[in-house]
């Protein structure tokens, strides 16, 4: 496991060196993502000139949701997205075949071999917003709420990772799913707003079979003192189940994979 981690670190280093080749473009991307975050923030602020609250969420609660959403979104964009964006090409050109012959954990290497630091601008700004909300007293900071928040963020990251594993398996199985990244984009569209805005049946779906409620709504609720302990516990259980199910799908896919490239 340690040696695999060492290889991943080396691949990340190569990935960073590659992006630093065009240094101006790289630094500009970080700044642009920072401004993208600011525009996203302004959208919420302008939104609240026409609305007093969204499904019971005040502007402060929505800012909490935005900081959590952007934190998770930036992390997946840095570590996972660059890999799935090129997955279709990798399957079709036979790059995957080459990877599968290596004595490594193929799942880890398909999902984590590339890294993109462009979203660092959004990631750091989401943390700054989070700290500002703490100083403003929007968050309820107790031992219990912080612990539950950490668990809910952990669950959110595991759910996102599991979705990536499932999508990667699907892309390999279908051989032509170049737009798996489109699905990721759509998934995060749902997470930009609290799940409370949706009708009851959709809400049930988002808390069970398509568990996106645990990605941003539950962590934001937990730290804002709006939620209870139960959703955090359910989220944790569902995240573990998601990981187990996606791992089983991955194993089945790799067992039946017969190469699509040349």
């Amino acid at each position, binding site marked *: 496991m340690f040696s695999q981690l060492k290889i991943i670190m080396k691949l990340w280093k190569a990935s960073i060196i590659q992006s630093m080749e065009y240094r101006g473009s790289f630094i500009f991307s970080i700044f642009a993502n920072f401004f*993208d975050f600011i525009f996203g923030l*302004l959208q919420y602020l*302008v939104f609240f000139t*026409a*609305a007093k609250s969204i499904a019971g969420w005040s502007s402060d609660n929505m800012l909490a949701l935005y900081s959590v959403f952007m934190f998770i979104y930036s992390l997946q964009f840095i570590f996972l997205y660059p890999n799935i964006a090129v997955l279709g090409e990798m399957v079709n050109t036979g790059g995957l075949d080459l990877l599968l012959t290596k004595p490594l954990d193929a799942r880890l290497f398909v999902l984590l071999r590339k890294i993109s630091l462009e979203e660092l601008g959004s990631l750091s700004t989401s943390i700054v917003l989070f700290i500002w909300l703490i100083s403003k007293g929007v968050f309820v900071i107790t031992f219990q709420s912080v612990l539950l928040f950490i668990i809910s963020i952990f669950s959110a990251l595991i759910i996102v990772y599991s979705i990536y594993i499932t999508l990667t398996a699907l892309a390999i199985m279908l051989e032509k799913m170049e737009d798996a990244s*489109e699905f990721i984009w*759509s998934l995060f569209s749902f997470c930009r707003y609290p799940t*409370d*805005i949706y009708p009851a049946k959709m809400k049930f779906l988002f808390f069970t079979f398509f568990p996106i409620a645990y990605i941003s709504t539950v962590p934001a609720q937990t730290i804002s003192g709006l939620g209870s302990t139960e959703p955090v516990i359910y989220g944790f259980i569902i995240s573990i189940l998601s990981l187990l199910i996606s791992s089983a799908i991955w194993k089945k896919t790799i067992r039946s994979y017969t190469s699509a490239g040349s």
Partner: protein
Amino acid sequence: MLHLKAHAAILKAYLKIMLTYRGMMILHLFRVVLMPLVIATAWLSIEKADGNPYENSDYLLYYLLVPLVMNLTNSRSVFRFPVSVRDGTLSRELIKPYPPLMNIVIESFTNNLQMLLYLVPFTLISVFVFQSHFDFSFLNYKLVPISILAIFFGALTRLLISGSIALTGFWLEDVTTLNLLLNGSIWALLGGMIIPVATFPEKIRQIAELLPYRYMLSFPIEIFSGRLTTLAIYKGFAVMFFWIIIFSFTARFIWKRGIKIYSAYGG
């Protein structure tokens, strides 16, 4: 001079290529309609602030029309051109007997055109399903051709802005971020994607009316829903023409400078 025959042949070829991947188009449709529907759901669940002129039915109609207008005014050329500079396919385009950028423009136009195969039925079915929620008394059929005209010029504005950004690909390795900043984030904020421009606070609305972004999305819908006076429509078209002229010159200027330094690597 207009190379109509050549352009029609390219359009036909692109249409055939795109129809080969019909399944993918459904995925694209999902992406185009999803965000407006999520935003519409958010607006329908708000507690309105005082002075907000929109009712639930207004929000519903607005966001049902957003995917259609957004698709018609969309320009995908911004991602294609820098690639053609990098891989050298621009060299081939330069020696063809019609304007070198037309290929990319037609590809983008074809994409928008064939998305209508999905979007028009989707919009009509949605309007039919939610018809009891709408008050159609505002409908004035004389405004329909004006809305279509506004969509056409809105598409031209976006094409010229995207084109200007795309042409910086002569110098920049990747224009995605520049596009995200100048064409994505500001457009979403001031174009009417997240918040209908008519519901902005007065001062922000005045700024939005002077910038080009509103004319690529919100303006045609505002005309269609009878929310603008004749004077406001004239004023809107005047601002839109101003930006069309500005970005026509900008694109031409960048092209002339860029083509001089283009060294045709790849092929």
